[in-house]
């Protein structure tokens, strides 16, 4: 049983008390973290008691301890998945060697960068979402938002532990800087672009958790394959929490769609805005935006960086050990779509250089399945409308599609046409203003839901939908 010691100031299952120096370093970082949470965490929630899930061990049966706690009292800490006996490096130049428990000296800089970039996204999303509680559509949703927030906080802890434990002074500095940067700040922005966008409304939040947290899932899956075992174990534990974020997003958007369909059917109209509900075309434009912005997070389609971290055994492919090849890819190619002469052409490139693209396509396929499940809701109401994912080249700012303008169907168009028709495809100012107008006061009566969203199919942890998921002091 890989229990978590909650008696410690920093709950952990890594025997922190046996490494006094590391314990002291993390204990000196902790107050700064709490200060950051108070300043940038969910606003105005210091006295609320939230029905949160806390892990008490890293084994499956220790996963979910539910109870009302104040978020500031949430037991953040350092939890690694149980070690896998005799684990090896499963890919790259070191394939077959024992997995590393310490950072190989020559890979120090690369690994530190990977961990820092991953770690930086965690507080960033808390910052992006800090005002959403003020306009929550229900206590159920408010609780889910807060659960997502505390888990992002814990993911930051997971990465900071790795930086402190394995990267000395450099790592401690990186950990400190993660608390200095701010999402959307002009002087000290977060590292990745998507994490500097505002999450101004709940539709954006649900899209973010459905699409962008799914990027998090794929990045974590790739890092969970790492030959650096502490990173792998950290990410494996984080993945279970990440799945919850995607549930919040998928079910949240699904419930907004459900409500739109109900109103369309009841009133035999597509014009549901006059009933205070979000229409399907607006949902489609939000989907286009979040999908294209998140696509950029994977980086360039053809990249030597990805090849290097794979070769080093630091970051693998999605489900690396389930793929039936040599896991070294020296003589393998991979087909990557390129912009060619006003159209597109699949070109074979060395597989090592196409790892970003491969991961992006795994993610895209996963997103597409979720969108299909949304379409089933619409079909259930007999409504002739389908949500679709835009072409991968649509609205891209990174990689080899960033120089061309493409409509959602994948037709290459002029930049002028794109600018002229932009509001057909991406949320316009008036879309954003309309959705914002629905985000009135918070709905905080147990069992009550804002008009624009349907209740969930079931409560949390078998509780009723009208359970008091958040208690206000």
């Amino acid at each position, binding site marked *: 049983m890989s229990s978590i010691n909650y008696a410690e100031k920093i709950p952990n299952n890594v025997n922190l008390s046996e490494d006094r120096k590391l314990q002291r370093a993390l204990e000196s970082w902790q107050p700064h973290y709490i200060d950051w949470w108070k300043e940038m965490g969910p606003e105005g929630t210091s006295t609320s008691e939230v029905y949160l899930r806390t892990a008490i061990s890293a084994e499956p049966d220790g*996963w979910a301890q539910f109870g009302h706690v104040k978020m500031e009292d949430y037991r953040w800490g350092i939890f690694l998945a149980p070690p896998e006996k005799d684990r090896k490096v499963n890919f790259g130049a070191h394939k077959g060697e024992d997995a590393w428990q310490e950072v190989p000296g020559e890979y120090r800089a690369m690994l530190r960068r990977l961990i820092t970039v991953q770690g930086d996204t965690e507080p960033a999303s808390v910052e992006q979402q800090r005002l959403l509680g003020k306009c929550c559509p229900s206590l159920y949703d408010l609780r889910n938002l807060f659960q997502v927030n505390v888990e992002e906080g814990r993911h930051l802890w997971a990465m900071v532990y790795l930086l402190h434990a394995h990267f000395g002074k450099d790592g401690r500095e990186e950990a400190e800087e993660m608390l200095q940067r701010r999402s959307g700040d002009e002087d000290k922005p977060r590292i990745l672009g998507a994490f500097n966008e505002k999450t101004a409304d709940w539709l954006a939040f649900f899209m973010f958790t459905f699409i962008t947290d799914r990027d998090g899932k794929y990045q974590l899956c790739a890092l969970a394959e790492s030959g650096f075992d502490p990173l792998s174990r950290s990410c494996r534990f984080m993945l279970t929490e990440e799945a*919850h974020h995607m549930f919040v997003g998928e*079910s949240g958007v699904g419930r907004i769609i459900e409500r739109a369909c109900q109103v369309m059917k009841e009133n035999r109209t597509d014009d549901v805005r006059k009933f205070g509900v979000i229409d399907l075309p607006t949902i489609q434009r939000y989907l286009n935006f979040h999908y294209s912005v998140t696509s950029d997070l994977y980086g360039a389609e053809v990249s030597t960086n990805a090849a290097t971290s794979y070769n080093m055994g630091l970051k693998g492919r999605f489900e690396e050990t389930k793929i039936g090849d040599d896991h070294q890819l020296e003589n393998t190619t991979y087909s990557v779509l390129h912009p060619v002469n006003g159209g597109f052409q699949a070109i074979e490139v060395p597989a090592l250089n196409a790892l970003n693209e491969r991961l992006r396509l795994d993610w895209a396929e996963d997103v597409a399945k979720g969108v299909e499940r949304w379409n089933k809701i619409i079909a259930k109401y007999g409504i002739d409308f389908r949500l679709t994912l835009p072409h991968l080249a649509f609205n891209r700012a990174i990689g080899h599609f960033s120089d061309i303008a493409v409509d959602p169907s994948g037709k290459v168009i002029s930049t002028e046409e794109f600018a002229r028709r932009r509001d057909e495809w991406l949320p316009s100012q008036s879309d954003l203003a309309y959705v914002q107008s629905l985000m009135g006061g918070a709905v905080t009566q147990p069992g009550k839901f804002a008009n624009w969203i349907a209740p969930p199919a079931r409560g*949390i942890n078998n509780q009723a939908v009208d359970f008091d998921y958040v208690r206000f002091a």
Partner: protein
Amino acid sequence: MELKRQHLIDPVVCIRCNTCEETCPQDAITHDRNNYVVMAEKCNFCRACVSPCPTGAIDNWLLVSRPWSIDDQFGWEELPVGESGPGEAEAAPLPPEEVSDLLAAATQTTGPMVPPPASAAKPYTNLYSRETPVTARVAGNMRITGDGTESDIHHVVLDFQHNAFPFLEGQSIGIVPPGTDAKGRAYNIRLYSIASPREGERTGFNNLALTVKRVPGGVGSNYVCDLKKGDEVQVAGPFGQAFLMPDDPQANIIMICTGTGAAPFRGFTERRRRNAQDATGKLMLFFGARTPEELPYFGPLMKLPKSLIDVNLAFSRVPDRPKQYVQDKLRERADELAALLGSDKTHVFICGLKGMEQGCDEAFADICRLHGLDWAGLRPRMREEGRYHVETY
């Protein structure tokens, strides 16, 4: 009809995150492009997948006469709730006469027509009989009375594994001891109260506990008390449709018992503790035994928070202490009991030895008289409203 318990995933709620498939130690979970599904033949109900599931979609257990195949499940848009599997369902048999006779004897004070509490869940009854029993495996058997005591009471946990055995707190199961009597006839069935809440000894585990006292020369009790871990037991039931716990969180429940009569109340209390910590209804327990060492579950009882249950213990054989019986404890708490008896939300349950009934009845009559209530009128009204239940043997 033989029902099996099948673990299924709700396709409406599931987000296909793969967590369950990754977690399952039996490799019983797989998926296609549409759904994640559970292979009935591989799933051993270990529940390792339940806690990590982020959606709750994994936590569905249906009773089926024939398990759904994975091909059935791949095609689902939603769970076939309310159906009992792809096989033809048959009507459940009536309780056998020997069980009816035993239940009638145990409830003769309140009579055969006493209704269950209005808010009680609907019980399954008579799913299994002597002729078509279900096999349970003994998951544990421990003596729960002090070693030096004459009273040998055992806590026996039976695990039903793949077989469905849905029960409610307060119901009983039937066990027929193996072998034959001196005349070569099969033994009579024995009924034992279930001591667990409906979700099992641990939430979601397909098991239940019994509280059984060894009676010298008693065939049934010696058979059960001597069971070893791993033994297989043939079980009939579940039985009983009136002595059931009210589900209303505002219901006050007065529980009075002696010895192994505590079994159903352990189920009641644990149900409240797990599912309705914030319930406004009060739980009061009056429990009689000769000494603390002979009182089953004495240790765990002492650990229960006062906010959950008001425990009153009566001991009749503690050296240098006056003898006390449950009716004495009832009188000690007359003010609180009178306040509860004045409420339509209050239920009284009595379980244990036949001899305790009269003393309790007199105590309630005295308490009511002192507080301006009419026990002679109140008791039949409570009985008709399903708020007064007695099971004694």
